[in-house]
């Protein structure tokens, strides 16, 4: 499975773009998080690997910004395993093992649509990393 971050502009919000694409491509799409209001928003979706290209193309044709987010990065050098982030994580992607070492599960992390842990790290070891920044910047300027 591949995670895609879909960004919708104000004009795209009223259109049933995601459902059209699901029907057209006949591909199941799991929506992991969604933050949308009348001004636009983001959806984090999970799609099968083999369908990834087709889906990305379909969304882009309709003007939706699609990024394959690298999401959250933890600097293992900086992290001293205080654990401040652990209880904050809504998807339990961060845990503390029996030796009290903080473990981060990239697979579970929903990334930049959440980022709840980023500003709670006293060591500033957690960074929210976004890919395809050029495209997102263009979209935001509109």
């Amino acid at each position: 499975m591949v995670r895609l971050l879909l960004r919708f502009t104000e004009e795209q919000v009223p259109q049933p773009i995601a459902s059209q694409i699901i029907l057209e491509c006949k591909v199941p799409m799991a929506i992991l998080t969604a933050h949308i209001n009348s001004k636009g928003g983001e959806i984090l979706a999970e799609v099968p690997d083999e369908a990834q290209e087709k889906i990305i193309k379909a969304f882009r044709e309709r003007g939706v910004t699609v990024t394959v987010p690298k999401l959250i990065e933890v600097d293992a050098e900086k992290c001293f395993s205080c654990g401040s982030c652990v209880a904050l994580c809504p998807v339990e992607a961060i845990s503390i093992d029996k030796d009290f070492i903080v473990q981060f599960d990239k697979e579970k992390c929903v990334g930049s649509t959440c980022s709840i842990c980023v500003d709670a790290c006293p060591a500033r070891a957690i960074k929210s990393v976004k890919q395809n920044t050029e495209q997102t910047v263009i979209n935001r300027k509109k």
Partner: protein
Amino acid sequence: MKKLVESSGVEIAFKEVDVVTTGTFGAMCSSGAVINLGHSDPPIKIDHAWMNEVEVCHPGAAVDLFIGATNMSEKQPFEYGGGHVIQDLAAGKEVELRATAYGTDCYPRTQLKTTLTKDDLNQFYLLNFRNCYQRYNCAVNTSDETIYTYMSKLLPRLRNATFSGAGELNPLMNDPDYETIGMGTRIFLGGAQGYVIGEGTQHSPKNLNGTLMVKGDAKKMSPEFLQGAAFTRYGTSMYVGLGIPIPILNEGLAKKTAIRDSQIFTDVVDYSVPRRDRPKLRQVSYKELKSGSIMINDKKVRVSSLSSLKMAKKVSQSLKSWIEEGMFLLTSPVERLPSDSVFKPMRQTQEIPFVMSVMHPAVTCSENEEIRAIAERIVTKSVNHIVVVDDAGKLKGIVTSWDITRAMAEGKKALADIETHNVFTAKPDEPLEIASKRMAQHNISALPVVDIEKKVLGIVTSEDVSKLLGR
């Protein structure tokens, strides 16, 4: 030791164990470093100084400075501070120093800029006036908004909890009567050897909130055990690794060092209440805290540590290997620390106003009243805000004279069309300043005062605030 006492009993443990090593690694804000720069040519008597843009203070003569861990960088406030400067110096990094002075006949220089490493300093001593808290609160937030505290980020409505302290590994928990820990005790401090130089500020051993004042040569310390930290919207601090060896001099100490997390309790405190005495929701053991979740009011709340238990273990293990290798010799204290004092609150000669002191009864209406009736009430009672309540007197909404005017202009008749449901409120025991800031922040002129069950107790308006200020 703990396992040995449990399996073989105190007597055997006393015979077999010579020393128990302990450790803690937490954010210790009352930390800092004293440095001496040496004299410049021409000499300067520093008035103001900054290291990597962090203001440092000049408590003594011309070129002595104190770097406080919580002082923040003027260029990157809340991200980089005194704790980071100390860590950078300990790591051998170059730090920029800038200073100004008024100039005297003996110290004529008024400006100074240079870069320094720890090797350039005459003295670089860690001097922490409050470290090693015996235990600490568990923090939660019952309000509707996320708050950022020195206990880190607390999500609204009890969505998380944080705690600090090493529990059964904490040095003071293993020697609660200060039999072996006293002035002059040699300790592990920041990766080097340091000393206890007395009781810490706010030392409160009687209720198991003891603290220590410590010092050590920071030139020998390691940045791994002295880490600058940034707490969003609170400020900067420093994590300090501190460990103490406890010689098992008697059976009593063997028993005391066998203490378990399940025997150490602390309070769950609601940090959303901006008062000195915050509500305590329950007592909780460190065993429960380390389990990852605790129950509060029948709700399972996920809890995580702020201090590093991994590093606390590393401190105690490093200390153990130093002792085994003969690199660290234990000392007996030259003077005992107080074991029965308590921490007093501040004497205040000026009272600050609370919402309770200015609030007055609210003019209310029910949800099914007509706008016309409400308009009349606004006129007869001469108020601008009508609080909408249900039969039990609980808050439902608010209507202002402006809402009524607009309803008239737009020909609306139903209260439901014009009332605001999402109402900002105040609590009676909240400082007025905080309620007043809330009004300014949301550009509103009144806050209904409600109790914990949303029952309306009164109202506080911006007029009340200005009247008080104009007195």
